[in-house]
């Protein structure tokens, strides 16, 4: 099979996987490009039935390489603390509500966490999640409507 045909067939899946790792389009394009460069070099040896798994693993390996070279790795490896330090106070009512309210879907929770705990703008959340700012706003409004009810109950 021709290289271009394989590229057209698999590039979206490879790019989507790269985006799921990095959320930065330029880096995702670099990773995708490197995977197909590797395919181009190895065209004679690759059975098309091995794709796109082969390409995805090239992207995964390259991402691992990048992590290995990031200083954050060392800092994280050394400084990572237990998830719940023994001395930490128990989770607050608000944290329990965020984690356990049955009305919240995972995407609502994530938007709430990023907006009100991580302090991101709606634009930053849209970039991080790949959803539109309008959707982010909608998710937050829905979550806040549930919070108002829950908070009202807690206060009363």
């Amino acid at each position, binding site marked *: 099979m021709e290289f271009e045909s394989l590229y057209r067939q698999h590039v979206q*899946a490879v790019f989507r996987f790269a985006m799921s790792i990095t959320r930065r389009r330029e880096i995702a394009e670099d990773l995708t490009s490197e995977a197909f460069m590797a395919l181009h070099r190895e065209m004679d040896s690759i059975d098309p039935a091995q794709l796109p798994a082969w390409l995805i693993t090239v992207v995964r390996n390259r991402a691992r390489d990048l992590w290995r070279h990031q200083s954050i790795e060392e800092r994280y490896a050394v400084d990572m603390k237990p998830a719940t330090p023994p001395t930490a106070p128990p989770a607050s009512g608000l*944290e329990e509500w965020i984690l356990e309210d049955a009305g919240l879907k995972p995407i609502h929770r994530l938007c709430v966490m990023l907006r009100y705990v991580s302090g991101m703008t709606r634009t930053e959340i849209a970039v991080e999640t790949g959803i539109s700012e309008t959707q982010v706003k909608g998710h937050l409004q829905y979550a806040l409507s549930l919070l108002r009810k829950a908070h009202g109950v807690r206060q009363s």
Partner: protein
Amino acid sequence: MSQPRDWDAEEREALDGLDGELAEIRRRHQDDPSLEMLRAAEADALPPEIKARVTRHLQDSAWSRAVVDGLRETGADDHLDAASEDRLFERITRKAQATPSRAPSRRRWSPAIAIGGLALAATLLIAVVVQRSGPDTVVPPDGASASIGVKPTIVDSVPTRPDPPRIAFAKPEVKLSPSALAWRGDAAANPFVRDLAPAIDAYRAGDYPRAVAAFDRLSAVYPGSIEVSFYLGVSRMLAGDDAGAIAPLEAAARLDNQTFADDVAWYLAIAQQRTGHPNARAKLADLCRGQGAHASSACAAVAQLDAAAPVPRPR
């Protein structure tokens, strides 16, 4: 980073009186793994030593698990538009043409033989050189080889293993077991079919990482579903994780569903062969001797394995 002052009136009103609790939540989670790290862990794109730490953290932290759950619902619309797809293709082909091949071909050596006229000695020398510098036998990647000896360039990150060969397989079409089909009469009210749909859609679209994440979640809810176990295993294989495919395929085998029995045995044998399972060849040979849908493919696979590593004849 936003501050409370960039909240709109609705946000300020809803969060009024919760400043202290929010500050406490921020303090509790200030040392959590970053979003980037959780995302990479979810895609199995972290070096093993870091992934192990993140995995341990996730076991203890409901907060970070909730972040990962949310991340799984993102990115569905990620794509390259037509112009970007063309631009990337041009970039790849331009670079590829500018980069000399790693491996000189035999054809390139033949004029040297003719011109040099070095007869037997030169031929032998060239044969040795070609053999040593020839292209690696490239095999489809797998998690085990991916995590070992990763080197700084992408060329060297391509997993290679000269022997044994890895058996290729075709992506199985989506099918449902009779029990699931029976439910389809009232699909709208059937939670299983409804829950299964996003995973199947991702699988059909070739978005295997997303399919793996979706089937993985379903496996906790529907541990007795043959569809979930089987397509989780196959999706992992298609995503390059042969080792990770074995457990769900073994679970699918234990369910002993006749609709899927042939397929489960075939894909499990392939996953095991690719991960060096000592009985993989024997399982393929069993399939070859049987009357199942994959018998001929299994025979071809056994022949391929035997050609690469001939079985010693008993003396």
